[in-house]
């Protein structure tokens, strides 16, 4: 497989077939928690994508050059600490230098440390044995997939607000069942990109 096709395959898999939220079940908390409005969903997803790519850029070299092969058992501890530090760092840098972006995304950043999608994608990149470039693309694809799922679901939820829902399903249950139907539609992509 040449590199262009593998890039396309990774992008398609990350965005559609192996969608972070709807088929890998990562980042369910923000998916259910911050998807009530399209614009908040969008900001949150952009922040997640940003952290995912930067976290991958930091954890991949750390694993490959420092931890491998003797200290791989430290992977989980090191990765979560690196992610926590990166999130703090991004927050500080944005606050100091890029105020408008901080105003838009800053409030979501503390939530991202414990978002399993970020630790998940960095671990998946190592488990799948991807190279540095492909790992970054995989992280980007996962972020875009997260964005797509969030925005689609925010749209679905805005319709749910006006729907006549049976009493016992009101609130969280109907949200989860709506998520099931959105996930069902994503099954249709299975097979694309291998």
């Amino acid at each position, binding site marked *: 497989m040449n590199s262009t096709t593998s890039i396309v395959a990774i992008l398609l898999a990350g965005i559609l077939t192996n969608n972070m939220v709807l088929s890998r079940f990562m980042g369910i908390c923000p998916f259910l*928690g911050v998807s009530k409005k399209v614009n908040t969903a969008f900001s949150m997803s952009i922040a997640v994508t940003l952290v995912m790519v930067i976290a991958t850029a930091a954890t991949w070299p750390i694993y490959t050059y420092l931890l491998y092969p003797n200290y791989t058992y430290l992977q989980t501890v090191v990765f979560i600490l690196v992610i926590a530090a990166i999130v703090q760092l991004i927050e500080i840098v944005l606050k100091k230098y890029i105020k408008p972006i901080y105003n838009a995304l800053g409030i979501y950043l503390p939530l991202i440390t414990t978002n399993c999608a970020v630790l998940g994608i960095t*671990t998946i990149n190592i488990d799948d044995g991807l190279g540095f470039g492909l790992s970054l693309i995989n992280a980007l694809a996962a972020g875009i997939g997260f964005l797509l799922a969030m925005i689609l679901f925010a749209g679905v939820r805005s319709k749910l607000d006006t729907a006549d829902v049976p009493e016992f399903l009101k609130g*969280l249950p109907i949200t989860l069942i709506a998520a099931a139907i959105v996930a069902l539609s994503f099954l249709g992509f299975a097979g694309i990109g291998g």
Partner: protein
Amino acid sequence: MKSKNMSIFSNGIIKENPVLRLMLGTCPTLAVTTAAINGVGMGVAATIVLVCSNLVISLLRNFIPDKVRIPAFITVIAGFVSVVQMLVKAFTPSLDEALGVFLPLIVVNCIILARAEMFASKNPVLPSVLDGLGMGIGFTATLTLMGMIRELLGAGTLFGFTVTANTIDPMIIFLLPPGGFFVFGVLVAVSNAISKRQGKPVVEHLGCASCPMHSACKNAVLDSNEIPTDCQNAEKVGGNNE
């Protein structure tokens, strides 16, 4: 004193069931419950981490400075997760394969961080351990129940034994991601209906109050005018055991 400890222990199992009442740990709940045995495995692994981290954090509660407590908690939790990860890899490789990336992801399982933040960092050792044990059992029970439902409907088996596979065609959709969301939605609806009948508040939204990032989240939520009432509601459900 004894009865108080007993109630701390039993709290997590039904009254404050971490998954159905506090809405914590939804990711592993949805992801690994394709078979009942995976639910048990995940639950036990998380329980071990939860009890050990509650124990250590409770012991260290007077030494950890307030400002760096979240990173400190995460480090303690990550240490125990690594231990469990190595044990599972060594003794039950099939479970390691089934849980996959969700085994290291126990680190960011909200239940563990939330109990550290809400309970272990404020209470003595024994109640903290009991709280961890109770919450862990509640988590395991819910995961097992969900795994049983999905396995029975999706594969016609229960813990690997054929039950209905020969008489009723298994509905594979229940093993796929949509089935996870659907079964969880129905379970929450049932749990809500039972709570309502007992006159308790219904879980409307993710339990913000029990989330370790509650303070940050609350600002985010208020800024965007999103779910302030749900957050208050979640406080009623989850925040009354301090």
